[in-house]
């Protein structure tokens, strides 16, 4: 009887842990499928690789002379380029401090049906010398090797 009880308990424990682990794995797979954002370069967007129904990130440099601000609202339009392809981006919130022409930028958002990238978030870094790995990657993939300095970023 005691043996049986012991076995039963062990079996329950094993079933419970298998159950728990499968729930955990299932949840992670579900969430990761839905919620992770692919990083896509402007060249790839132009080639039509970008998903139309999902949020993703693009990165590159803000093209010189492309920034246009609205007179009446916070809306800003600009072009993100990796040197090969240009993507039009619009954003209607406050721009980060380090946003300016010729600087690296990472934008998160969706393509609308007119081929305009509607950004929901513009990521900026604290340090002027810092270039986000994504920006470097986009430039490199487009054939502009960027020399990485030993000290890319500072801060805490």
């Amino acid at each position, binding site marked *: 009887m005691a043996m049986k009880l012991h076995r039963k308990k062990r079996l329950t424990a094993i079933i419970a842990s298998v159950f728990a682990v499968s729930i955990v794995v299932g949840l992670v797979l579900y969430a990761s499928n839905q919620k992770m954002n692919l990083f896509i370069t402007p060249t790839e967007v132009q080639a039509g690789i970008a998903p139309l129904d999902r949020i993703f990130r693009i990165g590159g440099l803000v093209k010189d002379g492309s920034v246009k601000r609205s007179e009446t609202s916070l809306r800003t339009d600009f072009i993100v380029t990796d040197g090969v392809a240009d993507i039009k981006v619009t954003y209607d919130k406050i721009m980060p401090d380090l946003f300016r022409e010729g600087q690296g930028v990472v934008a998160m958002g969706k393509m609308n049906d007119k081929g305009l990238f509607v950004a929901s978030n513009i990521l900026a870094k604290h340090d002027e010398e810092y270039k986000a790995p994504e920006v470097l990657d986009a430039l490199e993939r487009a054939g502009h090797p960027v020399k990485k300095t030993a000290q890319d*970023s500072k801060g805490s």
Partner: protein
Amino acid sequence: MHAEFGNYLLVFALCISICLSVFPMWGAFANNRQLILSAKPLTVLLFTALFGSFICLVYAFYIDDFTIAYVAQNSNSMLPDRYKFSAVWGAHEGSFLLWTLIFSGWAIAVALFGKNLPAKSHVRVLSVLGMIGCGFVSFLLFTSNPFDRTLPFFPVDGGDLNPLLQDFGLIIHPPLLYMGYVGFAVSFAFAITALIEGEWTSNWARATRPWTIAAWSFLTLGVMLGSWWAYYELGWGGWWFWDPSENASFIPWLSGTALMHSLAVTDKRNSFKGWTLALSLSTFSLSLLGTFLIRSGVLTSVHAFASDPARGRFILIFLALVVGTALLLFLFRSSKVKTKADFSELSKDMFLLLNNILLVSATFFVLFGTLYPLLAEVIGKKMSVGAPYFNSIFPIPMILLFILLGVGPLLNWKKHDASTLKKPLIKIALISVVLGLLSSLIAGEFYLWVMVGLSLSLWVSISSFYNLNLMSRHKKTLSKKLSSLSGTQLGMTVAHIGVVVTLAGVVLTSFHSEEKDLRMAIGESKEIAGYNFSMKEVQDLTKDNYQATRVIFDVSRNGEFLLSLAPEKRFYLAKRQIMTEADIDAGFHRDLYIALGEALDNSGNVWSVRIYVKSFIRWIWGGAILMALGGFLAMMDKRYRKLKAENFAKISEDESKPIFSHPVEGD
């Protein structure tokens, strides 16, 4: 001169830590009294050397010694003195020196206050800490020496401290955070020693508990300060971004929380032994992993440190050594530590087991989301995992945890009679749901999440108070009731209430805050959440190391003037860097928050402005302070001081009859 001296002290510290990792351990095996006795003086020397070295660096900052590269990069002659002091840990090298110093501080505390361990175990623990110290000090010396010179061409003035770090929060955030991170090294060293000796009794767990709780409490404060700092200094007004650097501290926090609870079971019931050991080992390993993620620059983060491949490689090798050794020891020795699992479905043991399963899953969720971009990069994809992933998955284990939290503390160990609890618990549940519904309706628009969050908060708080009353039911007056409670009981209650105060803050802030990005001109006013914000005037300021534009806003409610807020846009001269300085009126039930975007025309009278009315955001950090306070109360429990080396083995025999035990030789 001071730079050389600081450097010598670091080299000396390395020698000492090598001695510390070898001699006492050897002595404990060879029964050599002299070697055993060397542990304490060696630990004191290690601390003294690192402290001296730290003072040298502080002095270098104080006298603006720009011949030292680290000082030149992170300070400036115009920097105010208090920031010269905090600039010592403003970047990688100095902050790692602080980290190592704090680590040796923990080691010296173990040397002085760990006397309740048997002598041999005590020195083995110190020896293990010495080994970890070897790793830390060599990392400093070989990859991140803060005393490297710029000679012969040193700069006339320094590059200045990153303006974001010129702030009170950043003076205290890193020390507290590091207290937590490296504090888990102590429970790690205890676990390794227990594995070496093949003995992990309830007394071991009892001896480990106060150290773990202390580290956890500091980590809680550290994480909280990080969140607070991000809120007011980054100018985004958020309190948590699921940024890799935040996750790096949150992962060990979650795992440490699981460890604290599992240690309680091992202490009181002499079970869950292998599990507790595994958690002790993994919590510190996760701390190191967090360090690796932040300091190697492998992850894109708002505050990544300088990325130098050599550093990443060093930490990775060190991490592999630590985890590998721990894992090997665990595999070969943990079978000696037998666990008897003997409890029914309704018992404190069972609920703590569930607590651990949920907390470990939560740790895994966060770890997975943080590491996923790295994994994806291996298969050639660039991915980012942001708030949507974490926000959709993290609440699941947390909701279950809060439901259990209302029941677990009320239960007896081993077995509880369901009939005694059914009635009061149903009552408490009903009251919480009704009050939760009412308060979520009062708060404004109805949100299901707010109601769930508030009901859970009430459920846990009411049940905690009910439990306090039960525990002290034999005393009549309130003061007698309070004094009859042990530190553990009181601490547990305070910490549990703290966590639901945070929960209430989180749901209320997330759903009831009003946030607006606006274009505003002088003389204009805007109404947000019942408050009227009107833009009055623009001022220009000149300070020692920055110039600023300040915009004055008057805030009124129902036509009545409340206060003025004056957010600034600063231009730091040395780094030519622009900074947003938000102005915040903090309150019990709401914060008023204004941050400036940028001037939108040449006259400087039109600005992009970010105005927030944040509901109950202070509760998030207030709850964390309660949690830490609870931790400190629990640490003070008399039980831990009663534990004496002489009766180390004996207590465990009387109280819980371990299956495995062998006599511990005193020295």
